[in-house]
């Protein structure tokens, strides 16, 4: 491209400088805030004041931080789920549905099995059942992808709508196992007390919305980071992601790799749903359908560039947007919570654009001048 007598072109970087790894995501967030600001201003909300409120409510006050960490807990799981699949070029976007199924599976174990168990067994049991349910929900797309090559993108997405209706069926459409039998009000049947965790509380009476499951999510992220770097399995998926043909020539079983990655991804999202059960909800709660943690997980994973540790940071950032946005919604000058989703989408768009500048550097030279390569 030639502008003002200078030729501008892109040159692939040999070594990605460390600074680019940090600066590109930061700039993405900055530009996304600018775009969001345009829409805020257009609808009559002062952008700067709104953002300051959002930051104050989401990241700085005691309850802001603890609410954010509580919301980040399942979001880390869906972010890990998306990152796990996307880094192998498997674009499963079914985290939303798997999250619901994790909630259903976890609640089932919490109601049916946890009654006679002590808490140190009951809580892990709920989480495991959530993982199994999440994995089961992606089993059909996984097998189709591995066996027939059916695009996992649309198939996993379609199942989100099915899962959504399934939750609605259990709570609003029927009076079955998951519905609270003690009231005519449509709500979930509570799980056994032993299957619930109490939230962190500080200084005796300051009860937060952060649950110990946050630690589980952090450990999961750290474990995946370590495991996928050091294990044979991690190596094989990395080779497959780079070049499926190389992986095949090297004798790796592509069917098993594809289906296992999708199943593990589903299990991770499912754990997130089960954490919602042992933590704040304690039952199958249709409130989860309103938050969009599964779709947000994809944004988190992309912003983290599918790095499991960076997922933690990105998840906390986005959870803060949401808690901050929630607070804005009830303020004197209510701003629709959808602004949080707009910002998520914009961050993802800018992060994608920024990727080019991470991989390439911009070379500007006079036209006609020979650039040494």
């Amino acid at each position, binding site marked *: 491209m030639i502008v003002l007598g200078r030729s501008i072109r892109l040159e692939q970087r040999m070594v990605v400088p460390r600074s680019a790894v940090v600066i590109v995501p930061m700039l993405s967030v900055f530009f996304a805030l600018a775009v969001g600001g345009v829409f805020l201003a257009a609808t009559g909300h002062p952008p700067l004041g709104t953002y300051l409120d959002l930051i104050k409510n989401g990241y700085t006050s005691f309850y802001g931080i603890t609410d954010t960490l509580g919301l980040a807990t399942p979001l880390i799981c869906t972010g890990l789920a998306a990152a796990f699949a996307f880094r192998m070029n498997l674009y499963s976007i079914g985290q939303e549905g798997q999250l619901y199924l994790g909630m259903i599976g976890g609640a089932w174990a919490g109601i049916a099995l946890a009654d006679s168990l002590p808490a140190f067994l009951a809580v892990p049991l709920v989480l495991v059942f959530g993982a199994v349910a999440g994995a089961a929900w992606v089993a059909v797309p996984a097998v189709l992808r591995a066996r027939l090559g059916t695009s996992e993108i649309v198939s996993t997405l379609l199942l989100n709508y099915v899962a959504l209706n399934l939750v609605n069926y259990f709570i609003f459409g029927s009076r079955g196992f998951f519905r609270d039998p003690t009231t005519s009000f449509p709500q979930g049947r509570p799980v056994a007390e032993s299957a619930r965790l109490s939230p962190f509380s500080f200084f005796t009476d300051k009860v937060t919305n952060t649950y110990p499951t946050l630690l589980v999510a952090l450990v999961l992220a750290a474990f995946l980071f370590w495991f996928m770097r050091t294990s044979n399995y991690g190596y094989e998926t990395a080779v497959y992601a780079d070049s499926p043909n190389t992986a095949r020539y090297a004798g790796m079983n592509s069917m098993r790799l594809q289906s296992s990655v999708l199943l593990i991804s589903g299990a991770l999202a499912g754990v997130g749903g089960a954490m919602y059960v042992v933590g704040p909800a304690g039952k199958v709660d249709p409130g989860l359908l309103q938050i969009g943690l599964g779709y947000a997980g994809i944004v988190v994973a992309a912003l983290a560039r599918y790095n499991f540790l960076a997922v933690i940071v990105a998840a906390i950032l986005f959870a803060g947007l949401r808690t901050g946005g929630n607070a804005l919604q009830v303020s004197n000058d209510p701003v629709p919570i959808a*602004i949080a989703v707009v910002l998520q989408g914009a961050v993802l768009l800018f992060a994608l654009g920024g990727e080019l500048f991470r991989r390439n550097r911009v070379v500007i030279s006079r036209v006609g001048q020979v650039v040494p390569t």
Partner: protein
Amino acid sequence: MNSNIWLLTFADAISIATTLILASLGAMITERSGVINLGVEGMLLMGAVSGFVVAESTGNLWLALIAGIFVGVALSAVHAGLTVGLRANQIVSGLAMVIFGSGLAQFIGKPYEGNMRPVVIERVDLGWLTDLPLVGPVIFGHDIFTYATWAIAAGASFYLHRTRPGLILRATGDAPATVDAQGGSVARIRWAHTIAGGALMGFAGAWFMFARATAWNANATTNGIGWIALALVVFASWRPLRAIGGAVLFGFSLQVPFTLQAEQITLLPQTIVAMFPYLVTLLVLVLLSTPRARRLLGAPKMLGQPFVRDER
């Protein structure tokens, strides 16, 4: 239950198919150039909400439809800029479009949530044709845009298979390096068709708002129709005319839950019946991916691959 209601369901299926045809035509010509745009759902919602807002303030249907087209163009230009200009991952960019588009639609539409549509697309009366038994209501009882959509599909088919630019378009999706070697601009062709596709998607959303949806509801207005349109592209094997038949099939599956509800047929709970269109679409996708069916499909060979001249 009478046979009449199923006739009306079929007529509704053909009507609802209009959105599916327009959206999948948009996706189809985008994909034919080698760019995959998964953002259909976001574009539909944005087309619907911007049409709604314009109609609320002007009361003019045409301006509202143009607004829908304009927004589709704007969003798809962002997608083209990212994927063709900056060579970003097309799939993630498309997902970003869905998240950004549906978030923005919710944000913009918040003050209008639950409002009835201010203008309506009326069905045309074709005189004695509409009064015919059976075929009258099913074929001749629609609005002009439904008929225009069939014409657009036919036009797209002619363009793809019978014109020189269409040939170059197909070549761009299958072998961009060849087009480049022949002196064509791969980037320009991809830009043009991504934007044209976006225009169709935006229009599809706006049409749906004024012809099918009665009120604006960010969570229920399109309700996954964009994803079904993407499945329809595969079902139609990237051929515009086949999209019409497929759209009626998917349109039928979308309409059946409403018919059952209206007729108070409660064989299954409403929430279970609501899964029906998505399960039908999934089943169709599965059937299409059997090795036998795959041979007949013919997806653009370089779909989703950015084109960089120096690397070839």
